[in-house]
C-alpha cells in the first residue's frame, strides 16, 4: 500500500511538473503521429487515440485531429495539415518506415517536419502504453519537440 502511494505521488508530481513546463508554450506544434507507412500509405493517429493523448500531454497539438482513431489519411490532407513534427514508434526492422522513405514520400517530403528533420521515434509501449511511465515519456517527448526552445533558454 505504501509503495503504491509513493508511486502515485511521484507520478502526479511528474504530471504537475510537465503541466507547468508546457502551459506557457505559446505556439503549440502540430504533431503527426504515423502508425505505419506500409507501401507508401500513411496511417495516422487521429483524435481519441493514445497517440493524441501523449501529443497533448507533451504540449503539442494533433495535426489530424479531425480524424477519429487510427485511419489511413489522404496525402493531400497531410500536406495541408503541415505538421511541424512527425512522431513514430521505433520498432525492430524499422516497420514504421525509415527516414529515407519519408524523404521520398510525395506528401511527407513536403511537410515542415521533414524539411526541418523533425522526425521523432520513441518506443511504442513507452509513449502509447499509458502506465506509470507516461509522465516521463511525455516529458521526454516534450523536450524533443521543443528542443529549439530550450536551446534559446540556455
Amino acid at each position: 500500500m505504501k509503495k503504491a502511494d509513493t508511486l502515485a505521488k511521484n507520478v502526479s508530481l511528474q504530471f504537475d511538473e510537465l503541466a507547468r513546463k508546457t502551459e506557457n508554450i505559446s505556439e503549440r506544434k502540430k504533431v503527426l503521429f504515423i502508425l505505419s507507412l506500409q507501401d507508401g500509405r500513411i496511417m495516422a493517429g487521429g483524435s481519441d487515440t493514445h497517440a493524441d493523448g501523449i501529443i497533448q500531454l507533451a504540449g503539442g497539438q494533433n495535426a489530424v485531429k479531425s480524424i477519429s482513431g487510427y485511419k489511413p489519411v489522404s496525402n493531400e490532407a497531410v500536406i495541408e495539415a503541415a505538421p511541424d513534427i512527425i512522431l513514430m514508434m521505433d520498432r525492430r526492422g524499422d516497420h514504421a518506415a525509415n527516414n529515407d522513405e519519408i524523404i521520398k514520400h510525395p506528401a511527407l517530403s513536403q511537410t515542415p517536419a521533414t524539411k526541418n528533420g523533425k522526425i521523432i521515434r520513441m518506443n511504442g509501449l513507452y509513449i502509447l502504453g499509458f502506465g506509470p511511465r507516461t509522465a516521463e515519456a511525455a516529458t521526454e517527448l516534450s523536450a524533443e519537440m521543443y528542443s529549439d526552445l530550450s536551446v534559446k533558454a540556455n
Partner: protein
Amino acid sequence: MAQAFGSSFGQIRSVSQRMDGDRSGLAVVVIAVLAFLMFFTAIGALFVGASEAAVLDVLLARLGFLDRSLLKVADIVIVENIRIPRIILGMFIGAGLAVSGAVMQGLFRNPLADPGIVGVSAGAALGAVSIIVIGGTLLADFTETVGAFALPVAAFFGALFVTSVLYAVATRHGRTSVATMLLAGIAIGAFSGALIGIFTFMADDLQLRELTFWGLGSLAGATWMKIFTAGPIILVVLFASPFLAKSLNALALGENAAMHVGIPVQRMKNIAIIMVSASTGAAVAVSGGIGFVGIVVPHILRLAIGPDHRYLLPASALFGAVFIVLADCVSRIIVAPAELPIGIVTATIGAPFFLWILLRRRDMMDM
C-alpha cells in the same frame, strides 16, 4: 457521377431497342462513348481531392502559359505527384482487372469467374500479409534488401507462385483442365486463407489494422515509380488481349468445337493464364484487393453490347478504367481528410448498380 453512367446507358438502350442479332455497330458506338468518358473522367478527377489545390494554374504552367515559380510548391506536388499518378495508376488497374475478368469468364466459360480464380488474389494477399506480419522479424532480410517495395514485390511473386501451383495441379499430359483448375482454385484459395488466418492470429493490433485495410484496396500509395513498374505489365496485357478475342469467341462453343475450328486451345489457355496472373498480380500488388471490377464491368458490357470478345475486351478496359477512377474520387473525398478504402466504394457502388442493370435486363439473361 453514377447518373452520368445511367443516362449514357439509357441512350444506348434507345439507340438499339432490339438486343438480339448483330450488335457490332452498337458496340463500336459504346466503345467510342467509353473512350470519351474515360478521357473526361480522368480530367475531372484531377479537380477532386481533399485539398483545394489550384489545379488549373498548375496545368497551365505545365503547358507554358503561366510562370511556374509563381505557384505554390504544395499545389504542384499535389497535382503532379499525388493526383496525376493516382489517376493514371487507377486507369491501369481498372483496365487490367476488367480485361482479366472478361478473359477469365471467357476461358472458364463461367460467368462467376473473376481474375482471382487462378489464385492470383489469394497468392497476392498471402505475400502482402506475410510482409505486414513477419516483414520486420522473420523476413527482415528480405524487407531490408527490397526496402520500401517489399510489400508489392512479395504480393506480385505470391500471386505468380500460387497461380503456377494451380496450373501445375490442373495440367496433365500437356492439357489443362479448366474444371480441375476451378475446383483446385477453391481448395488452394481456402488453404491460402488458412495461412493468412495464421498470420492474422500472430499479428499485433497495428498489423491487424494494416492487413484489414490492405485487403480493402487503396490507390493512396500511388507514385510514378509504381506506374513505371506495374504499368508496363498491364499495358502489354491490354494490347495483347484483342489477339485472344477470336479464340475466346470460338471457345464459347466448347473446347472440342474450338479445337475443330483450328484454335490452338492449350496454347491459348497458357497465354490467357499468364496474361491474367501477371496483370492482376501487378494490379493487386500496388493497390491491394480491389474487388468486383473484374466481375461487374464485363457483365454490364455483355448486357449492353453482347458477348463478342472483339468488342468486349477493349470496352472492358475503358469501362474498368472509368469505374476505378470514379470510385477513387469517392474514396478520396467522402471521409476526407481520411481515406475510405476503394474496395468498399467499388462494391457499394458496383453491386447495386449491377443489380439494377440485371433487373432491367432480366429477360436478356434468360435468353
